[in-house]
């Protein structure tokens, strides 16, 4: 009976594509989560990678090119981490559709590279059954062989090769060991697998027994338990020390993005000032120089300054994720999440929302429960994303002198920043609580989370992450922020009166600012902030460039710099109100667009935008009143 399932599947599939000289061969990389799949992908493709989305779904499509010794290239596609091919979650459906050749606009792969964790073969071998049943040439890489060896485990890859009728190799992708046969496989691809037997794919216990039998044939000796992981966990999941360390890690991350990034940011700033002066000297001293220097250089430059800080934040998130600590953090946080009606699975999207709400909204795909998913999407933009950092940094540095709070560990500025992060967090959780006890009420979904062993993050993987982030940030600076800078420069210089540029308050931008001023005056904002609030509807960090441009056009403010100009122009109440406004407001077109796409209608993004803006106005109003009364 085990054969029938497999035949039915094989019959339903289109035949493997025939060799085509024009198209580079396509090889899919498949594997369970935590099998080191992406490390293999990085090893094979290096920097020749591209991330996009599959049409119609939001699972990330990671494509890369591997250059072979014979000069040919192979396209590699890194499929999402899966435990089985039964299409239940979105990730599994994508993997299934790509492998079956049913993904629209995507060719069926010519071969499959299955990556399994050799220290966890008992479970991971189960995935070999549906993969081999595909009828595509396949190679199985038993990854993390160094770990297996060091912990006293072993497996006979030769015996597995015979049983499975497909090449099986031991390798260690992090150390670049044992990947030679993989390169050969990419060159030749080889024949379709001819396994001795396959279990009925729908029957998990049978598949499990099949995998166990294979293990015995290959004299699989599971490794000793990961001693270091156990030792670290007894500390990091300790009833008292666990939460203490969790809190300490958070504090250290914030303090360091504030203090360590400072010298780097200063050098970027001088580089921008220096290059602006140099470019200015190349352009004739007309309106064109003003556009280039005051418009583009000031506008884009004042945002670029924050690149080091944002990269540092992503570096920390990368280290936490790659080391395996993130799963422990989710475990520690689950009770808190449950209290507001969410689940531990919402934790990871919400944590990525600290970097950016867009990937966070995409990451909610792993939440099977639709209502939990929408609730998570709706609260994700409250988490303090990297685009808020420039705004917070500017205002805090302008208004708050740096003094130690907890000795050398925490200063006033980092503490203020931490407070703002906390504020966003509280807003998110209060909102979740309200949503989950009213319109999005649902049954509690089960929480299942694998705890991977701790691993040392590799420089390579961290480097690739940072490179990705830097590219995205620079692309934004080169498109949306550049465009806003140019538009702002134009509206700040028009209409010409008698052939001369009007004073900024009588320009189009000034008029616009003055129009909205009555609405924002109760918050302690003036019309210049009003212009910033309007331009930052595109993206939060744009306000920094806008304020830089507007204050840069005032002759006396120009010499004092933006921070000093703000200090003179805003009351402390207005400054705190501005921080609160940015903590709550949904000033981000990309997020609105992605929520629209993810939820399938304009209903949720509009509700979300209205709710967040109302909360921002109310919060800023209260903040202004309270601070003004206290001081």
């Amino acid at each position, binding site marked *: 009976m085990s054969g029938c399932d497999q035949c039915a599947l094989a019959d339903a599939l289109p035949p493997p594509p025939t060799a085509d000289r024009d198209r580079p061969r396509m090889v899919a990389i498949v594997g369970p989560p935590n099998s080191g799949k992406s490390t293999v992908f990085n090893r094979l493709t290096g920097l020749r990678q591209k991330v996009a989305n599959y049409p119609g779904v939001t699972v990330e499509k990671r494509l890369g090119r591997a250059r072979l010794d014979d000069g040919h290239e192979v396209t590699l596609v890194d499929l999402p981490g899966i435990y089985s091919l039964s299409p239940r979650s979105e990730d599994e459906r994508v993997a299934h559709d790509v492998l079956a050749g049913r993904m629209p606009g995507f060719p069926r792969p010519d071969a499959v590279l299955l990556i399994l964790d050799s220290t966890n073969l008992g479970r991971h071998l189960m995935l070999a059954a549906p993969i081999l049943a595909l009828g595509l040439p396949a190679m199985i890489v038993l990854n993390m062989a160094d770990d297996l060896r060091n912990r006293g485990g072993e497996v006979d890859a030769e015996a597995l090769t015979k049983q499975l009728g497909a090449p099986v190799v031991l390798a260690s992708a992090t150390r670049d060991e044992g990947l030679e046969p993989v390169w050969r496989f990419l060159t030749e691809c080889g024949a379709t697998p001819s396994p001795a037997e396959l279990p009925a794919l729908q029957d998990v216990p049978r598949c499990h027994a099949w995998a166990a039998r294979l293990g015995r044939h290959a004299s699989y000796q599971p490794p000793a338990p990961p001693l270091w992981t156990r030792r670290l966990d007894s500390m990091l999941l300790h009833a008292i020390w666990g939460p203490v360390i969790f809190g300490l890690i958070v504090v250290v991350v914030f303090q360091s993005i504030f203090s360590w990034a400072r010298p780097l940011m200063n050098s970027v700033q001088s580089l921008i000032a220096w290059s602006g002066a140099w470019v200015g000297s190349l352009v004739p001293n007309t309106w064109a120089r003003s556009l280039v220097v005051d418009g583009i250089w000031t506008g884009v430059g004042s945002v670029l300054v924050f690149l080091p800080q944002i990269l540092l934040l992503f570096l920390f998130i990368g280290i936490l994720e790659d080391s395996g600590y993130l799963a422990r953090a989710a475990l520690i946080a689950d009770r808190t999440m449950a209290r507001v009606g969410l689940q531990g699975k919402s934790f990871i999207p919400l944590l990525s929302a600290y970097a950016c709400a867009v990937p966070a909204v995409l990451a909610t795909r792993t939440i099977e429960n639709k209502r939990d998913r929408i609730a998570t999407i709706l609260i994700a933009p409250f988490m303090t994303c990297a685009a808020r950092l420039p705004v917070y940094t500017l205002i805090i540095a302008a208004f708050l002198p740096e003094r130690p709070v907890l000795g050398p560990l925490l200063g006033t500025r980092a503490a203020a920043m931490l407070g703002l992060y906390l504020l966003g967090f509280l807003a998110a959780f209060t909102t979740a609580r309200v949503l989950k006890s009213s319109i999005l009420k649902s049954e509690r979904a*089960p929480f299942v989370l694998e705890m991977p062993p701790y691993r040392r993050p590799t420089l390579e993987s961290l480097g690739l992450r940072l490179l990705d982030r830097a590219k995205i940030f620079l692309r934004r600076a080169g498109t949306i922020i550049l465009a806003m800078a140019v538009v702002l420069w134009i509206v700040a210089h028009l209409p010409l009166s008698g052939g001369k540029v009007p004073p900024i308050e009588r320009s189009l931008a000034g008029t616009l600012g003055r129009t909205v001023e009555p609405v924002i005056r109760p918050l302690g904002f003036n019309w210049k902030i009003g212009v910033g609030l309007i331009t930052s509807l595109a993206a939060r960090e744009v306000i920094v460039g806008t304020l830089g441009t507007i204050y840069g056009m005032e002759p006396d403010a120009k010499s004092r710099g933006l921070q000093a100009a703000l200090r003179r122009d805003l009351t402390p109440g207005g400054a705190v109100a501005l921080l609160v406004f940015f903590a709550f407001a949904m000033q981000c077109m990309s997020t609105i667009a992605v929520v629209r796409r993810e939820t399938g209608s304009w209903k949720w993004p509009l509700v979300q935008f209205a709710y967040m803006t109302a909360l921002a106005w109310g919060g800023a109003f209260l903040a202004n009143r309270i601070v003004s009364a206290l001081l």
Partner: protein
Amino acid sequence: MELRQGEQGILDHLDLPEDVSRRLMELGFVPGSPIVAALSAPGGDPRVFQVDGAEIALRRDTAACLKLRPAASAAAD
């Protein structure tokens, strides 16, 4: 039966909806497998379980639906 930290049991059956129990079985919670209760989040929930060489965290209400028999009876089977 309920496992306390450090205790071991044999999984007898999963008293859970089809899709949840499939997911858990793919992670190694297959009837007949030995399960060890390991560390937990502060307050004891969720708890990490060692099964089939992996460590999986489950909330108390899910874990309560994994019906176990004592480890000793495994030898009799």
